[in-house]
């Protein structure tokens, strides 16, 4: 287990690494997801946008296995899979970086990156191997903002924390990384750093799903844009095919003028 994801060649980008078809999810009487389709490609950043309450969180929680979907097909690398728990998702190589990052302030960078999955030697913590691997992963992602991996996370800036959370997600030969609003709480310079990091993840061959409210960020890094509107996936298009105002229109009304339906899906089931 010395190889990191950063050393893998970019996978075939023709077929999606993760594919959802006809996903349905209800919470009691509330029908949250209505026949949602979504494709995540290796080596591409797919942005998932949508207004509050469109179902973005429900969708990523379902992908991550926090709660199952009611109906629909979930396939990973072309194979149909069932994901019932976060462990199932992790085993497939799906990692989620949540908005609140879930880092322990009192532990250092290495401890946080290996939290819950500590490497052991003779049943004891193998600190030097963990430190080496953490360093290799950060270097592989060209992270220059962290001077020492033995700094407690409490002493890191918001951008550095985000970096640690993302590095933790790619440490485990993951194939798909889902980022929930990674730039929401960051300043301009740190946003740039994190977006560059997001881009590098895709360049290293990972499939990246980026949830963001900031369309500037989306257009800066995304290859594909998927728009959720009231639980329906109204479009998944290449970023180059649409402009900012069309995406805003899709987010707010579910339709875009001056654009054919194309890959978008009509009103769902």
């Amino acid at each position, binding site marked *: 287990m010395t190889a990191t994801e950063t050393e893998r060649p970019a996978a075939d980008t023709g077929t999606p690494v993760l594919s959802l078809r006809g996903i349905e999810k209800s919470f009691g009487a509330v029908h949250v997801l209505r026949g949602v389709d979504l494709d995540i490609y290796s080596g591409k950043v797919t942005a998932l946008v949508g207004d509050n309450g469109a179902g973005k969180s429900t969708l990523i929680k379902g992908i991550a296995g926090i709660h199952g979907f009611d109906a629909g097909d979930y396939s990973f690398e072309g194979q149909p899979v069932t994901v019932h728990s976060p462990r199932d998702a992790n085993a497939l190589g799906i990692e989620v970086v949540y908005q609140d990052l879930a880092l*322990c302030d*009192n532990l250092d960078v290495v401890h946080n990156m290996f939290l819950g999955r*500590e490497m*052991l030697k003779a049943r*004891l913590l193998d600190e*030097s191997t963990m430190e080496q691997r953490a360093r290799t992963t950060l*270097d592989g992602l060209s992270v220059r903002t962290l001077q020492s991996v033995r700094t407690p996370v409490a002493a890191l800036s918001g951008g550095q924390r985000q970096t640690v959370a993302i590095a933790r997600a790619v440490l485990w030969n993951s194939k798909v990384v889902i980022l929930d609003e990674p730039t929401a709480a960051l300043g301009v310079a740190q946003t740039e750093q994190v977006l560059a990091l997001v881009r590098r993840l895709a360049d290293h061959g990972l499939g990246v799903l980026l949830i963001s409210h900031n369309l500037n960020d989306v257009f800066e890094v995304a290859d594909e844009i998927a728009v959720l509107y009231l639980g329906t996936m109204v479009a998944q298009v290449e970023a180059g095919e649409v402009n900012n105002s069309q995406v805003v229109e899709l987010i707010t009304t579910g339709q875009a003028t001056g654009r054919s339906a194309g890959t978008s899906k009509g009103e769902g089931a």
Partner: protein
Amino acid sequence: MTTTDEQPMRQQSIGDAFGDYLTRLRGGDVGALPAMAGLVALVLVFTALSGSTFTNAFNFSNLILQGSAIAVFAMGLVFVLLLGEIDLSAGYTGGVTAGVLGILMTRHAWPWVPALVVALLCGTLIGLSIGLLVARLGIPSFVVTLSYFLGLQGLLLLETGAGGTIAYRNNEILAIMNNNMPVWLGWVFALVTIVAYAALGFARRVTRVRAGLATPTILVWVAKTAAFAIVIVAATAYLSKERSRNVFLASLKGIPIVVPIVGALLVFLTFLLTRTAWGRHVYAVGGNAEAARRAGISVAWVRISCFMMCSTLATVGGVLLASRTNSVNPQTGGAETLLYGVGAAVIGGTSLFGGKGRPLDGLLGASVIAVIINGMTLQGQSQGRVYIITGAVLLLAASVDAISRRRASASGRV
């Protein structure tokens, strides 16, 4: 690749190591510094006030005996404090289980080993039940352990009978707090400790150098080992002196037997917390329970196991108390035992907010408290004043904790 990677091995000079330490201090990570400084200051003050009555070897060993039970209670409490929880019942847990040991040995004539094992298991069981109530039922630990505090106090009263005592007559158990190691064994013990400390430090260095990780210069290791060796040798030499007031009646010299016991506990508990995955999970749950849960750590089990650890160590503390007074009475583990235990952990640097603390903190804090009690009593100060000063020191330590936390969060999130 970062620029630092071009040099395969990163050697830090002694200046770098010292600079790192200063940065950590400024960042609010004060570690053992306040407790050490306080201890030195107190020793100087009492030496100035009382002179040789305070510094003589007899009083030194007395100090160790006074502090050791507090230290063991405090080391156990560190585990629950690390989670941001509290165990108010630790004192009486010690009393009740020391009572179990006394009943088994004295009334039922059990040999001491199985009796001690049963007493320790009783402690673990008490901790298990507290942990289950806190982690599974979700009752705040303050309330659960407050109930246990009352309940166990009652149980201890039933064990001893009103105003009665359970006598300890077993020589091995009594020896812990009343006898000393032979002088030669004390020196062997001191030497083994120093060699082990040096070897462990060196082995860690070698591993880091081999792995090509940033390593402080060898001088840091030399300085640390030398300082450690000096302290151990000085303490052993002092305790090896004849301290009996009348040598012809009874000779009194050597390291008290409780010292290697507390030392071994310190090493073992530190090892558990720093070198095992379980220990890492304890810190993680104390730092951010939600993050720990999402990382797949069984938060409930970590909680339960820490309460078990605390209560088991409380049993050891209770046995030490009973060994010193030769019996268990309705006040064993009562009165200020628990408060001194919590106080010692906090004075030593363990945070009441969770996530920060070490078993060593319990030992340092207990030393501070023992020095205050001992020094003030020698000065002929009343018990009232001792309580007031101890309270003030605890408040000071809690303030240091709060301020250092504020500094830590200020130096974080830029």
